[in-house]
């Protein structure tokens, strides 16, 4: 779920449209609004991020942030869930709400001529959710179904087991969906209390991108969110440090493919090593010219999927090397993967290969930032992570400055201890 999606985010700047204009405003109550005008297509995308997610959860209430959002979309003070769905569909729109690792998100899209309406529904959902007691059991059942689906899916299960092993006592060890045991314990009062604790103006960032007028959108955002009183301050959670003990765990489950994951803890988004680890990740498993793809798939046919993931998060991230392969190839594939780790920790990467990796990294990032949905998310995300609006440009420069010795250094540092998970078909 969250982590796999995150994996495609690098950072950089290459093809961002020159026509885009961005405005930012912090309202008196601490609520932040970011608006980006983009004339390309007659659409609008809204992303409302709230500092609320796995990072504040504990094993006993794991999944509560996401659970709250599942109940939220069931209706507001003004309309039922069905009426809300109908109203959104009439705008040519979509509305989603979910809990993630470092944040929760209400996201919406629509035809841009309905920007005022879609902003209104976003505010209504965020500020006046009904959170009806009668919806809790049904949504719990639905979430349990999704957890079961994740357990039945070999790659998803393997990633969950990997994060559990890598992070140990840290909250990132538990999936954003929670566990059957934690969901069973979370009741209606707990959900309402969790919502009230986190949905405070100073914890919220709204970003809007599309064929809209920034002045009008800012004024409407002020009207919708400006009246919200400041809330009690929620402190940063005290989180146990993650503990990568270099474990190797194996599992069996019915599947056609074997899953192999190996990796270590990696720097957070604002860490000075972030760009170098991003390049390292790309050298190993970025695209079809990445080493894992070339060596394991192209040259030896030892894996079908061969990639590296490294997600930007607030606490330590994870650099994950991932293979999906036929069961009879699993042992050889794992050996070959480890040899690639040894090689990147021993020999400096060549200049051509480094340039390919940088080109790929920055190119992918530029491609990823072209749609309004992604733009709205990026704007809100960088604000929420506190890295500032110039982050993409700083990041691009940081990536371009990475040298072969930087890659060697971070490979030695961050791939020194490997946690490994192998899931074999039963």
């Amino acid at each position, binding site marked *: 779920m969250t982590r796999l999606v995150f994996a495609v985010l690098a950072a950089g700047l290459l*093809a961002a449209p020159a026509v885009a204009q961005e405005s930012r405003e912090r309202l008196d109550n601490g609520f932040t609004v970011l608006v980006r005008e983009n004339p390309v297509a007659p659409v609008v995308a809204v992303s409302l991020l709230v500092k609320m997610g796995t990072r504040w959860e504990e094993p006993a209430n794991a999944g509560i942030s996401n659970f709250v959002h599942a109940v939220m979309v069931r209706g507001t003070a003004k309309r039922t869930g069905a009426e809300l769905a109908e109203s959104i569909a009439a705008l040519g729109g979509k509305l989603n709400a979910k809990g993630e690792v470092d944040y929760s998100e209400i996201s919406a899209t629509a035809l841009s001529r309905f920007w005022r309406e879609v902003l209104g529904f976003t505010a209504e959902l965020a500020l006046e959710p009904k959170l009806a007691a009668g919806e809790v059991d049904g949504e719990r059942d639905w979430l349990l179904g999704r957890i079961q689906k994740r357990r039945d899916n070999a790659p998803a299960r393997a990633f969950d087991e990997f994060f559990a092993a890598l992070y140990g006592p840290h909250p990132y060890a538990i999936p954003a969906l929670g566990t059957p045991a934690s969901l069973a314990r979370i009741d209606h009062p707990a959900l309402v209390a969790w919502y009230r604790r986190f949905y405070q103006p100073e914890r919220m960032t709204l970003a809007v991108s599309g064929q809209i007028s920034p002045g009008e959108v800012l004024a409407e955002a002020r009207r919708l969110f400006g009246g919200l009183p400041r809330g009690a301050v929620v402190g940063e959670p005290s989180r146990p440090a993650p503990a990568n003990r270099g474990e190797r765990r194996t599992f069996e489950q019915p599947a056609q493919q074997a899953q192999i994951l190996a990796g270590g803890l990696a720097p957070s988004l604002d860490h000075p090593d972030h760009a170098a680890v991003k390049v390292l990740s790309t050298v190993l498993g970025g695209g079809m010219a990445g080493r894992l793809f070339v060596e394991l798939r192209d040259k030896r046919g030892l894996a079908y999927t061969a990639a590296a993931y490294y997600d930007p998060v607030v606490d330590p991230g994870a650099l994950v090397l991932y293979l999906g392969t036929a069961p009879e190839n699993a042992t050889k594939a794992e050996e070959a993967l480890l040899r690639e780790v040894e090689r990147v920790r021993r020999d400096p990467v060549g200049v051509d290969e480094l340039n390919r990796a940088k080109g790929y990294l920055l190119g992918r990032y530029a491609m990823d930032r072209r749609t309004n949905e992604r733009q709205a998310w990026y704007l809100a995300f960088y604000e929420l992570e506190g890295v500032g609006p110039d982050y993409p440009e700083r990041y691009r420069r940081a990536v371009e400055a990475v040298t072969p010795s930087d890659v060697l250094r971070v490979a030695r540092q961050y791939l020194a201890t490997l946690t490994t998970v192998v899931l074999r078909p039963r």
Partner: protein
Amino acid sequence: MARARLGLGVVLLLAGCATAGAMAPSPAATPTREVLPNGVVLIVQEQRASEVVALQLWMRMGGRDEATDELGLAHYIEHMLFKGTPTRPPGSIDTLIEGFGGTSNAFTSYDTTHYDFVVPTAHLRAGVELLADLAVNASFPPEEIESEKKVVFEEMNLIEDDPEKFLLRRLYEVAYSPHPYGRPLLGRREFIEKLDRDQLRRFYRKHFVPKSMVLVVVGAAEPTLVRRLVEATFGRVEPAAPSRGATPPVPTFGPSRRVDVRRAEKQAYLGLAWQTAPLANEDVYAVDLLTSILGDSPSSRLNQTVRERLRLVATIEAGYGAFEKAGVVTVTARLEPADLDRAEAAILDVIRKVRAEGVTEAERQRALITAESSYAFDIETAEGLAKTYGQAETTWTLDNELAYLSRLRGITAAQIQAVARKYFGDDNYARVRFVPGTSSR
């Protein structure tokens, strides 16, 4: 992962198939289409959304063009094209594209295969030259053919492990077999294992001819420059007779086309399929709107009735696979095994009600807005717009694509009810159910 994807994405084809019409971002935003002397069709549109260009080669050739002893070749060739040409050794193609910050991808479907690049404008020339090189000079290195077999087997495994993808694939097989639309696009293991270089080269030479090629270029590039580059590359390919043969008529769906599959998952999956209008048929517009009203969003009838009110499924959706020679509407759901029969009965009830009472004006309006919106989001990127053009040119016509939304607007609620009565009976559907149990795969 690139090149891992099956052509089954085409099932939602019409969701994004609409026209610029009244809401085009600028009046100049229409494509030009021309046919080069050797038969290559070139479709060009300048779009300055960002400094990239989408280059897509669409072939009028897909899984349906394979002979019964060639199943899987179209897809295998899709993999092999990136393995090299006489001037480009294995591996160099991906390195080239990725090094300049571009992406490459390829897809095989029943009617078409397409090869997609997105490159920064500065690399337009290199991109066009590369695409043309792959289209006529692929060298099929023998050792690459062998090692790619394992990759294709893995791709088969990967699809089987994904219940939603596999359900759709099985549903198409059960509904259409032995018609070409019921074939596994990846082929069968026994055949792929024995596949040799001559077979591949024969198939490639037969089908990769100028008259089967459609090149779509959308993005931040001068159309005159694009035309010059294409004339100097694709324009110089030797003409040859097009290769496409006749496609047999599609079968009738019904109770004999129903299969239960035991799977390891704890949850069940249900897929139903009705034979409806192929692309060239005038009913395509009404069927598209009907599919949207039935199951395109949380407010759709199937969602509101079967999921929300009756709580019989965890997810449910309807999709319209509009192909050149057939159209199929599928309804797929994830649910508890105990609810399988009741959910199926409830789905049939929802459809029966549309047949008897029709749809409301508000539903028709929502479906129209959904189509308009889906198109507007497609054209946010150069490759999204290029895809709608390439798909239309190879399986329909570009003009039909450009007029799509205005045609959709002319469809009445009565016409939607009429197609529901024409195509959706109580018994004329194919069905696949995945039920928990020891795998019988």
